[in-house]
C-alpha cells in the first residue's frame, strides 16, 4: 500500500525551483580518508569507491599519494604523487628583537629621549627650583625696602 502526497510534493518542488532557478545538483569528489601505506604499490592497488579520493602517507619514504576515482565506476582512477620537503624556518633571536629597540630601522626613534637626557633635565629642574626658592627668600628679606619704595611713589 503506497502513500502519495501530491500537494506536498508540488509545493516543495516549486519552492526549490524558485530558490535555485538555474542551479543543478552538483556532484563533488569526497574525501575518502587519510591512510598510512608501506609502499607506492600498496597505494596504487588500494580500492577506492566511485566519487572518492583517498590520501596516503608513505611510511617508508617522504611521499604523499592521492587516488581519485570518478563517478563512473568504469573510469580509470587518477593517481598523484607528492614529495614532502622540509621547509627551513628563518631563525629569529627574540631577545635581540626586544632589547635593541633603537637599532630597529622600522621604528622612528627620534621621538624617544634617552634616560641620561631625562636625568640631565631633572637636575636642571632641581637647580631652577632651588634658585626660585632662594629668590623668594631674598624677596621676603627685601620686603621692607620695596614697601618703602612703594610709599615713596
Amino acid at each position, binding site marked *: 500500500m503506497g502513500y502519495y502526497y501530491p500537494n506536498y510534493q508540488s509545493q516543495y518542488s516549486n519552492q526549490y525551483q524558485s530558490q535555485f532557478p538555474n542551479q543543478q545538483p552538483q556532484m563533488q569528489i569526497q574525501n575518502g*580518508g587519510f591512510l598510512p601505506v608501506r609502499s607506492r604499490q600498496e597505494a596504487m*592497488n*588500494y*580500492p*577506492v*569507491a*566511485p566519487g572518492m579520493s*583517498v590520501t596516503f602517507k608513505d611510511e617508508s619514504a617522504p611521499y604523499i599519494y592521492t587516488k581519485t576515482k570518478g563517478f563512473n*565506476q568504469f573510469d580509470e582512477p587518477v593517481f598523484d604523487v607528492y614529495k614532502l620537503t622540509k621547509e627551513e624556518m628563518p631563525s629569529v633571536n627574540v631577545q635581540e628583537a626586544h632589547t635593541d629597540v633603537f637599532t630597529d630601522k622600522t621604528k622612528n626613534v627620534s621621538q624617544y629621549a634617552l634616560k641620561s637626557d631625562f636625568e640631565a633635565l631633572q637636575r636642571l629642574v632641581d637647580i631652577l627650583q632651588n634658585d626660585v626658592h632662594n629668590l623668594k627668600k631674598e624677596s621676603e628679606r627685601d620686603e621692607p625696602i620695596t614697601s618703602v619704595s612703594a610709599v615713596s611713589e
Partner: protein
Amino acid sequence: MNLLQAYQQFRSNPMAMLMQRYNIPQGVDTSNPNAILQHLLNTGQVSQQQVNSLQGMRNNPAIQNLMK
C-alpha cells in the same frame, strides 16, 4: 555458530561466507581481495570507510597474529 566456528569456516572457504552476504558475480577475480573490494565499492555494497577500517585491521599486528 559460535565465533570460533565462524572463523574456521571463513578460513576454510572465505568466498562462501562472502557470497552469503554480498552479491559477487562470476566475472570478479576472486583470487584478488582488492578486486573483490573494488567491486563491492563500485556497486555500493560497502562504503569507503568500511574498506578503510578493514585495511586498518589488516595492518593490526594482533590480527595478523590471529590470522597466521
